[in-house]
């Protein structure tokens, strides 16, 4: 069984976690076209590689981002969402 590191609670067995899908940056709903919005909602880039994913630690109710390589199933890093916001704003 896999282990995953919750940024708050440390390394825990995977059975305590819920996968929340790939993280997607929501486009501005007021200016996007219908097809751009539809692809935000429905399109998933399933190509294997390093992904930012939502994970939820059930017992503590913690959502966080895991950077996981879906080809090798290695988790590079996990952190809370606000760190992602900081990274994006630096860019």
């Amino acid at each position, binding site marked *: *069984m*896999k*282990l995953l590191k919750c940024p708050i609670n440390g390394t825990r067995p995977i059975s305590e976690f819920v996968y929340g899908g790939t993280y997607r940056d929501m486009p501005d*709903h007021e200016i996007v076209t*219908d097809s751009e919005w539809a692809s935000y909602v429905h399109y998933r880039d399933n190509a294997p590689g390093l992904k930012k994913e939502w994970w*939820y630690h059930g017992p503590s*109710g913690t*959502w966080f981002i895991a950077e996981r390589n879906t080809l090798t199933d290695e988790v590079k890093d996990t952190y809370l*969402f606000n760190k992602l916001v900081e990274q994006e704003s630096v860019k």
Partner: protein
Amino acid sequence: MNMRINKQTGEWLEREKQINFTYEGKKFTAYEGDTITSALWASGEKVLGRSFKYHRPRGVLSLANHDINVMLTDGVDTNIRGDVITVKEGMSLTAVNTLGGVKKDNLRYIGKLLSPFLVVGFYYKAFFRPRFMFPFWENIIRHGAGLGKVNFNYPRIPKPKLNEHYDVLVVGAGPSGLAAALAASLDKQLKILIVDENKQAGGSLGYDRAGSVTPQSQLEELLSEVNITPNITLRTDAYAGAYYTDHLIPIIEFSGITKVRTKTLIIATGVFEQPPVFRNNDLPGVMNGSAAQRMIYRYGIKPFNDGVVFTANDYGYRVALDLIHAGTNVKAVVDLRKTPVSSILTRELANHDIRIYSGHCVYEALATSDDMAVKGVVICPFDEETNQADSEQSFTIECDGVAMSAGWASAAALLYQSGMKVKYDYTIEQFIPDSLPNGIFAAGKVNGVYDFDQRIADGARAAAEAMRYMGMDNAPVITVQAHSNVSPSHSFPVVPHPKGKNFVDFDEDIQAKDFINAAKEGFDNIELMKRFTTVGMGPSQGKHSNMNAIRILARIRELPVEKIGSTTSRPFFHPTPIGHLGGRNFHPVRQSSIQSWHADAGAVFVDVGAWSRPAYYQKPGVDLAEIIQQESMAVHNAVGIIDGSSLGKIEVCGPDAAQFLEKFFTGKFADQKVGEIRYALSIDESAVVADDGIVSRVKDELFYITIGTSNAAMVYREMQRWLQMWQLDVGLINVTGSYGIINVVGPKAVHVVSSLTQDPLVSKLTAGKVGETIISEVPVRIMCVTFVSNIGYEIHVPADSMLAVWEKLIKAGTAYDIRPFGTDTQRLLRLEMGHYLPAYDTDGLTIPYELGCESELAMDKPFFVGQRSLKILAKKTLKKRLVPFVLADNFSGQMPEDCNLVIENGEIKGRVTSISYSSKVDRVIGFAYVDPNKVEAGSQFEIRTDNGSMVKATVVNTPFFNSKKEF
């Protein structure tokens, strides 16, 4: 004939303890520590089992815990592995898979008479047509081919799972494994576990002695060092069953499984000896060289009286010396190779006057007249270049046993499972690790290191690498010398014979020619060949057959061995009792705080999401359908009471609470007044209906939400996620377990509830309002909700005070014949009211427009989850709409059911989502998806029932009972 010899140093027996047991009805004695196989062999018993397909007599092949042909039953347990399980006093054993006993097995005629017809793939081709005959053939085949019979009265023996954590787990307690553990133990902080599947540690050092005493003293030295090292735990009779992600290894012992999580894993599992392939290599008495050695040094048995060693490496010479030590008359050493290389060993054999036939093969083993033992071998010159045996120049040597040494294959199952990449090393003719996943290391023979000193060094190297992996940068750098001697394995130890019966896989009775035939039929990829021939698919999973299969396929396809690749054996590494894997019946359910009251009142419980809820309350002599109608009529006519504690309850508080709800739900909450309740609909980003609920504004900055039972956890989770993204000043508290909900409904509900309190709030409370008050010293929230009845009170009580309030209400309601009801009746009541239920009347694609709930969508808000998608969907043509319908008055005939289709002109237009008879309406009522132009009351459509009949239904308005006059 007694084959037991003098006590051997390091043997596994306690000779002072004698054990009596029976095998096939005959009495035997053994010593404590004997396996079933060793006890029988020591007594001169050679036929220990029958083969899977041809029912050929079989004895000992490997004695390495994978002799699958020796499986027994004691009447309770089946498939007891003879080479693994020690004999116990009073055991009464018989071989599995025989008809009339192991010696007179009547199914042996399959092998004798039918085998020419039982070519590879025979079953696939012969029995699939005509199809109706297959069950007949299947029955016969399953009785003939197979292993033990399952005892269905097997006692339930709980085997608890244990969990342990280590820094270093070493699999295999041979020299490399012991050396690895000792090297790692120099760091006193490290917690180290060594496991070994054998009863005692030592690996090949315990038995591969070449007649010398040195190996045993080397082993004793290593073991005494391990024993005094406090941070090493050595566990024998325990095998690593599998590799699972992030270094989780189940360690399997007789008593059960220990799940070991380790930081680093060192695999020192060694190699499996691979038998050479020649005619009748399966006769009892023909065995691997290492099997003969194990027999001698572990169990003090002379393997045979007159033996021939058939070798294709130097190990055969060592085996010959061990046989001489045990008192076997070694009549010849037959070496497939032209020039035996090791001069020391040949000289030693020469000292014993042993004749060596180089460049020769054992062409075939000859059976005794009863077919149950070896009486001799036919030997002839052999040309390694052309793989030709010159049978014209053959001669015969009489013997009662053959020891075979042709080579080895890595015991690399766990490494394969972990994702190892392999390469083929031609200097040793073996697959070895090319690259290993992080934290996993291989040492010793499995890593291609054969020399004793180098195996010790390789163990220390693996330990040092493991320590560096754990961040100990000062771990020593150890180099291991490359293999410099002759190859321990032969590249193609297969002797062709026109009459076949030269077995490659002993589990499944697969001969060399089966591979050729399979390849001819196009199954020439190793994975396809495995499935077509079933090589490696028996209980030993190819431990003795995989390498020969690969070599044969490589030769057929004229490819180098590494291009063929290897199949991965799956967990578990050895056959593991299913009782070890079974878990406890551990299915937690959530219960209301007054669950026992319900049980006492005759409730029949049903699982709803994570909860166990009363479905209905039994009445003696009244059937379920009638109870539901009675419970619902009690609500319509007087008053009913239901425990709604399982509803999800979430408190949303803080300055931005209203703003949060406006973004999360489709409706408006900013202008909601304190003391008001509102319906709330939640949709996902693609505008699919997720759930609905009730939002009460308790205080200006405190909202209290109730949502559906089964979706509650998911909705709460999504709220938490969006809150992180929106970064609003809001606190979310899941209070589902903190409050119980008592729902008192029906025209008399107001009398019942107001009798409990003087607070005028209650009697004045109208639909859509919420208030806080005290009922018998308990602070409660009370709201008027019209979900199952036009008049209804939801009383939210602290869970630990719920019983007191519930009992008071029941008491107060006695005057009105108050009746408790369950979820079955609740579903009917809400249907009569005309309320759809998300997840019941919706599915994973339902959008709000299909429910006709446009009024709940506040599209003028700046944003809510799913709003943008709704704007797109609003422009599209609707495909279906949910409508309330009734069937004809006094409808009789096949009753439509949930999911029956709505069909118009042969086209599917929708389906029924809820349907039930209602006493109140005196009609069959329901919800169905229909064509959007059939929404108006009075429209008609047809439902196809399970028996194919078409039933007319009419669309009506809701609540059903108000519109009764319309139809």
